[in-house]
């Protein structure tokens, strides 16, 4: 079985605004699930970037000031221990790039009612990722042909909802509700929208 690799696609980065905790750093993408921060893309001097991380890790809030004069500031909050920190130094310009990503996005839990998140960069890739989540979740067989239908019905049922995103990224929230997804599949099969592969 050959290992098929799809080309990597880039998450769009657009300047959102600046965060000032210790010095200034710049935000290039952000996504919020209600009040909970899911994704944050920040670059700046090491101290400033780490100060943002430290403040959020303590459960305090900080805010992004958009460059537009009349725009409202974006307030970032998180519960403690929810975010995974990925940091690296951009060589040559002495800037640190920090990514904060929600743990549910990295390690989804299937055993109980939970949520996970998906980046919508490449639609087919995202569909496939959703399909694999559902395959892991439900106890019945799920075929790749069904994925588009599942996305459509998931959105109708409110199992897939978009997050508030800034800076060109697009994240979606998936509710990993086993019974709800099984019901969607059963209904599709019984109504003839889903067919078993020949």
């Amino acid at each position: 079985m050959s290992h098929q690799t799809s080309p990597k696609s880039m998450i769009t980065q657009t300047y959102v605004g600046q965060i000032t905790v210790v010095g200034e750093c710049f935000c290039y993408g952000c996504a919020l699930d209600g009040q909970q921060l899911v994704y944050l893309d920040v670059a700046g001097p090491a101290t400033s970037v780490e100060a943002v991380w430290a403040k959020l890790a303590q459960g305090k809030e900080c805010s992004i000031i958009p460059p537009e004069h009349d725009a409202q500031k974006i307030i970032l909050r998180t519960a403690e221990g929810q975010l995974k920190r990925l940091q690296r130094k951009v060589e040559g310009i002495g800037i640190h790039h920090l990514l904060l990503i929600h743990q549910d996005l990295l390690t989804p839990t299937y055993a109980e009612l939970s949520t996970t998140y998906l980046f919508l960069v490449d639609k087919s890739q995202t569909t496939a990722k959703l399909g694999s989540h559902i395959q892991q979740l439900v106890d019945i067989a799920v075929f790749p042909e069904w994925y588009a239908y599942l996305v459509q019905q998931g959105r109708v049922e409110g199992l897939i909802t978009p997050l508030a995103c800034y800076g060109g990224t697009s994240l979606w929230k998936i509710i990993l509700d086993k019974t709800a997804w099984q019901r969607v599949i059963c209904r599709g099969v019984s109504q003839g929208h889903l067919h078993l592969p020949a």
Partner: protein
Amino acid sequence: MLYIALRFHEKGRYESHTPTETASRRKPKVSGYQLVKPNYRILKLLVGDHVSDIPRSRIVEYHYVTVADSVRQQGHYFILPVIDSQLAEIEAITKLERQPPVHLWRDDQWWSFPQLEMYNTGEMTTMRTTIGDLFGNVHEVREHQIEKTGLRIRPTYEPSKGPGFELTRPTANRAPDAPANLPTLITGNGMVLEWKRGYEDKQPCWWLRDEQRVSKAQSATYRHYATLKATPHARWSKGFAAWYYTGGSRPPQKWLELVGYSGVVSPAMPPELSQQIEAVLAADDAAEKEPLIPLSLYDTHAGRYDWNYGNPEVWCKLAHDEAGWLFFIANASLTERSLYGYQLTLGENTAVGEWLTLALDDLSADSVQRDPQFTRQSLRHAIEQAATKVKTFLPDELGIPTDADCRRRAFEARHQTYLAERERQRELEAMMKPYHAFQAMLNLRQAFEEGLHHLTGCKALPTQSPPPLDDPWS
């Protein structure tokens, strides 16, 4: 001989502005006196030859002078002899001042010079006090009537306290007149008790010290420290290392005992004579009549009279045997020499009572007796007591309410004011009701408008139509 006492403000060393030959920039200091202006003028007038100015700049309230040693001083005062012809000139100066610190010694007492004084003109004026807060709200405006004061020249000499000491003839250095029948120096038990004149204007006093200056452990006076310390008017002088006593010309008996002075035995009075004296004193005491109402009673009950709805408290009971009345005093004025109270006249089978004022002088002490057992109590109670004794009348006939009745009346009066206040509030509420309703409407409208604005400001909700199957993420 007349003297005047002229107060100087301060005695010290003052910088002088006189040019000096030395190159030093420091101003030379001259010891001298600081005087207020009128005193300076008087001093110049009386002993101009002995006074020279210390030139000073800037300070104009005071004058600074040096005075020759021949001018007599006592305390903070120059004591200067004057003659009658000079008085007119001094008066001309003091008449322009209020309470100038100048005093005249005449006829063995101090007099203040003619001077300006404040007096009440008798004209009334209104003073208005406004009590408010920072925000300009006025809470209360009070008006007081006060009498206007004016300034006038008092043309007469008045007796005054003067500098606070009696002027005596300046005495040469001589031993102070020690108390009679005591030596001025008593030595004994390692201590010396000595009568010594004071320095400058200090009074002479008794000093108790060790015979020799010895250490504390060997000191005889320190051994008796507690006794000496407990003596009134006795103090320890650190400089002289001695105790001194300012309580009088005779040292305390304890001190005489300490130095072992027994004194001369005074001739004893024969017992017959002392008995005779005591008898005379006793007769004097007996002749002195006890007043009808002792002063202590006035003092304890002064200003405590209140009407209390017809049943005030009375604190003294007088009984007239011949006229047959009882008088219960509620209030007494010593200045007007009058008594205000309730007079209860007891007839054969009747009793009549009325409130009236009696002059204290009209009551002859022989016929009127005070009941010494009588204590402060309510009038009703006092009348009931009298009724139980006489048994000819009932206290209800007099119309004096009982204590409970009085309390009820007081409560009713308070209750009436409370009801009036309640009624006033209710009226105010009724009056303000449309206003409050209007306010509520206004609030409601505002809330509605805000809600509407919020609703219309929201973006349109996404449609719930299912996304297309070929592009479910759109």
